[in-house]
């Protein structure tokens, strides 16, 4: 775990990171329950075990910066500062949801905080991210774009086209690959020719970095470096954050394609546990305070669920709204 420079002056920020990771953990832990109770529908994808990537990465960019997300997007949204009540209302298909119930788990977006949307199309975010980066460049605003995607998405042609375009136009783009080892049942080791995801940027002449995706501070540091490059006009960077999908692809996934214990080494490095331990060891927090943070996160998620449940279903007439504007 990257620990250099942990000090009291950063305390609030560091506890904030822990808090957000706990919120994501609590939030995505409720998904199976919501589904079995018939409160949610469609598919919702938990990012359990990947909290450090979302939180570390979003901590490294500014409020005005953009992110694009994926089907596994709750963590990204929370890390970027989305309201979990409205997120939960969306997952429950209610009128107070971010999309007024029209999107569901796979389409949460909050344009007011630069969260340009989860995406049901694997690789669908590449072009949106690069386009937003071009937009920022053309408008002359100092915004960068952080594009989250998976080890599965890197095999889409869109990755190639956008990497090339971002490279020749030096777009302020950070390509953040969450290598959680799987794309549904497909292992990254079997699907990525050459086996080295970080090597993919070499085709386009821009740098890449592999980082421990279980370490929130390491992720933050890597994304900061990439963000600095982007802001300096030096173009895109590829970051590969190695992590592990603790749960199934979505609730109901029996995971027959992986052995029960193959993930154990990863589970032992649970990013929440590790980060909490570091903070305690460094004397930035004691166990009681850390427990309180965890409980606060759980409470916040329970409240989000209550908020969502109280929110009415969208009126039928809304089905006809917002096709055109």
């Amino acid at each position: 775990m990257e620990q250099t420079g942990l000090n009291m002056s950063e305390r609030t920020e560091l506890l904030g990171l822990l808090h957000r990771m706990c919120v994501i953990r609590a939030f995505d832990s409720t998904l199976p329950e919501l589904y079995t109770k018939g409160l949610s529908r469609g598919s919702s994808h938990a990012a359990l075990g990947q909290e450090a990537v979302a939180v570390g990465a979003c901590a490294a960019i500014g409020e005005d910066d953009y992110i694009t997300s994926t089907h596994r997007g709750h963590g990204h949204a929370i890390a970027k500062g989305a309201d979990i009540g409205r997120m939960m209302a969306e997952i429950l298909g209610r009128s107070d949801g971010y999309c007024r119930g029209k999107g569901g788990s796979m389409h949460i977006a909050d344009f007011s905080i630069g969260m340009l949307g989860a995406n049901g199309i694997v690789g669908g975010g590449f072009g949106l991210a690069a386009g937003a980066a071009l937009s920022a460049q053309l408008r002359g605003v100092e915004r960068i774009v952080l594009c989250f995607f998976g080890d599965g998405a890197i095999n889409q042609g869109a990755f190639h086209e956008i990497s090339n375009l971002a490279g020749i136009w030096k777009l302020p783009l950070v390509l953040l690959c969450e290598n959680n080892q799987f794309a549904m049942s497909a292992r990254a080791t079997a699907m990525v020719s050459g086996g080295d995801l970080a090597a993919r940027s070499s085709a386009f002449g821009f740098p890449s970095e592999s980082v421990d995706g279980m370490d929130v501070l390491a992720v933050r540091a890597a994304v900061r470096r990439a963000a600095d490059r982007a802001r300096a006009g030096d173009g895109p960077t590829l970051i590969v954050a190695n992590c592990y999908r603790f749960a199934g692809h979505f609730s109901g996934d029996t995971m027959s394609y992986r052995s029960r214990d193959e993930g154990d080494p990863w589970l032992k490095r649970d990013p929440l546990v590790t980060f909490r331990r570091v903070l305690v060891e460094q004397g930035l927090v004691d166990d009681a305070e850390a427990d309180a943070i965890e409980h606060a996160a759980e409470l916040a998620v329970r409240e989000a669920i209550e908020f969502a449940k109280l929110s009415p279903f969208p009126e039928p007439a809304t089905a006809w709204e917002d096709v055109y504007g």
Partner: protein
Amino acid sequence: MAERILTYSEALNEALREEMHRDPSVFLMGEDLCTWGDEGGVFGVTKGLANEFGTERVRDTPISEQGFVAMGVGAAITGMRPVVELMYGDFLALAMEPLVNQAAKIRYMFGGQVGVPLVVRTNLGASGGKAAQHSQSLEAWLMHVPGLKVVVPRTPADAKGLLTTAIRDDNPVVFLEHKLLYFTKGPVPLGEHVVPLGRAATVRPGSHLTIVGTHVMVDRALEAAAELFDEGIDVEVIDLRTLVPLDIETIVSSVERTTRLLICHESVERAGWAGEVAMEVMKHAFDALDAPIGRVCGKNVPVPYSESLEPLVVPQAAEIAAAARALLAGVELSLPALTG
């Protein structure tokens, strides 16, 4: 012929298995075909096939839809019969280039030198909140591309019989399943079962109005028909089974008897294939028509997520019944004598 009760998914699986046994040039490609769920396939269609035939012939692909569909085309023009799966029909949008610019045109554009015996399987339809990017029904796009055949099985028996035919066909066939049908059950013939392309099935005879549809729209039309029968309205229901080729004869001869036609599809109304059926019916039987040809289709909106909205944008039985009533409003009807 001996039959058993199978699900639609099992019936598809059986067709794949039998054709793979029969013809070594048949092989499968797609995402999560081998080990997902219970031995393969998000909807179980490829269950057990990787274990039986090996991962050379049942190939898990990376998430590269354009690429692996294009490879299907390349394999098809060099002696193989690939069956390629797109996990959801919405991903057709990623694979239109190889399907439309290559597969559909190769035979013609190269002067008949070679055929493209490729099957691309995928599914259509809204189901349980999959929302805008996992619910589309894009069959009209494919119908609009000369060189492609378009198959839309509804029953487990047809699923088996039409997939068998599609695999043996020497042309690119887009084989469109429906998410809500995978786990419906029905009798399926044991052993070789071939259903020809281009023959619609009249699934309910009737005398006052003809309803044509595909997939679950047929079931909803049957529901509506049962309700209407109690009101004295006798509806004939036709399951098209294939959209290209289209069995216009069956539709026309039905309409010549009933004089009224209602077309139902889940795909969005605007520029959907209802208009195609209507143009052909007008061409052949305009004088027989006693009412405008009607349609009940998906609404011209993306499919919303919420359970309070999704059902509004996809035709339900009640809407079909209402449309049928409207086409017959003011008409004096008598039910046919109960013979036979």
